[in-house]
């Protein structure tokens, strides 16, 4: 969806045409679901979070600053929903103990890689997790990430670097030395 189509959809929603929101949902549901999935590490929870984020975006659309990218705005709402969701879960249930890693000489299957990365990501702070998700799962460039996160490109690079370093340490702690 081009910027102008996006703005037209926003305009129609604000005029009361709720069906125009379909265009926005169609454009972003996949990417936001993947963001939420990597943030909360559970498909059902990710679905709840994304639904809630979209509904919140619809309700607060009048507060959206049109000079910003719509994705930046919805992305932030989604990340905040993820964080709220995780805080609620932490309050409600004790976290599971870390699963032991597969051992250094074990060839990792795709599913295992996903599980390991998913668990390690949860141990990163939201800022670090966010840059990993945007770079590696949403495949944004540094410049695009800078626009979405509204931070300088230099900060994006530095945050990514630290996030990967921490992730590497977390994976090493789980016994992963090579993929």
């Amino acid at each position, binding site marked *: 969806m081009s910027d102008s189509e996006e703005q037209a959809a926003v305009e129609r929603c604000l005029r009361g045409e*709720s069906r125009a929101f379909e265009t926005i949902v169609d454009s972003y549901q996949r990417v936001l679901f993947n963001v939420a999935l990597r943030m909360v590490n559970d498909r059902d929870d990710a679905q*709840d979070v*994304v*639904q809630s984020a*979209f*509904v919140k975006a619809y309700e607060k659309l009048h507060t959206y600053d049109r000079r910003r990218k719509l994705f930046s705005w919805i992305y932030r709402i989604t990340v905040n929903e993820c964080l709220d969701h995780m805080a609620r879960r932490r309050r*409600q249930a004790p976290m599971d103990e870390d699963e032991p890693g597969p051992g250094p000489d074990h060839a990792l299957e795709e599913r295992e890689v996903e599980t390991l990365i998913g668990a390690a990501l949860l141990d990163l702070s939201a800022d670090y997790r966010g840059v990993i998700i945007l770079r590696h799962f949403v495949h944004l460039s540094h410049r695009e990430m800078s626009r979405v996160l509204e931070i300088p490109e230099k900060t994006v690079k530095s945050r990514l670097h630290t996030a990967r370093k921490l992730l590497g340490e977390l*994976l090493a702690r789980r016994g992963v030395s090579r*993929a």
Partner: protein
Amino acid sequence: MRDDEFDRLVNDELDGVATPEQKAELARRLAEGESARARYQEIQTVFGMLDRIESVDPPPSLRGSVLRAVESRARARSERGGWRDLLASGFGKRPGLGLGYAFAVGAVVGALILAVGSGLFDRAGFRGPEMQGALLPPTGSRVDTVHLAAKGAQATGEMWTEANGGVSVRLEVRSDVPFEAHVKFNPEIYVPVSLRRVEPSGGRFDLRRGELQVSDQGSARFELRLRAVSTSRPPLGVWLGTSGGNAEGQLMPLPPNWNKSR
């Protein structure tokens, strides 16, 4: 070059943003020593693992559930807007009369309250019809109870009214054997506000979309508060199961005779 600077160089290279000068510097460092090559490989491993994770399709139901929720918000908004327009037509468009209208309406309402309270209408022979309709029970009322028994376990579910049309469900289970208990609700209509484990135990519980699941043994007590995002009030389901059998029932948000004459 410090280790951290070397790491940044490797990150830029693997990210595809290294300049020719950085590439040359990196090549020089890698040629120089084994430790640099080992560090390069470690960072490459992280990149490799991250890149092996593929994007997944969202569940097919996501789109529909988002659009239904948005549609219901839009309807609610337009209904609220209708009332607002109606009031605006009386007050907003004649700002000079706004205070006068407000005072007049307040005076009439006040007089009516006084008249009803003092029994004036009854004495004057005015007797309206008995009150009817689907008025909600007052906040904090218990509106339904269900008792379930499966082999070795008993559960009681209670439905209470909350402010703003919400409800809370209190679930209590006593069991000598491992059990599972579920409270099921329509997620399009009821949105969880809070979940409280009243009686701590070692069991597990999970609040998923449209369902609270409890697995435990012994006793468990939970209070789940739900906000209603629609005017409809479908019943909630309660299910109790053990290895010996299961039982299920419903909790009605309104008592069965609520909309009859009161």
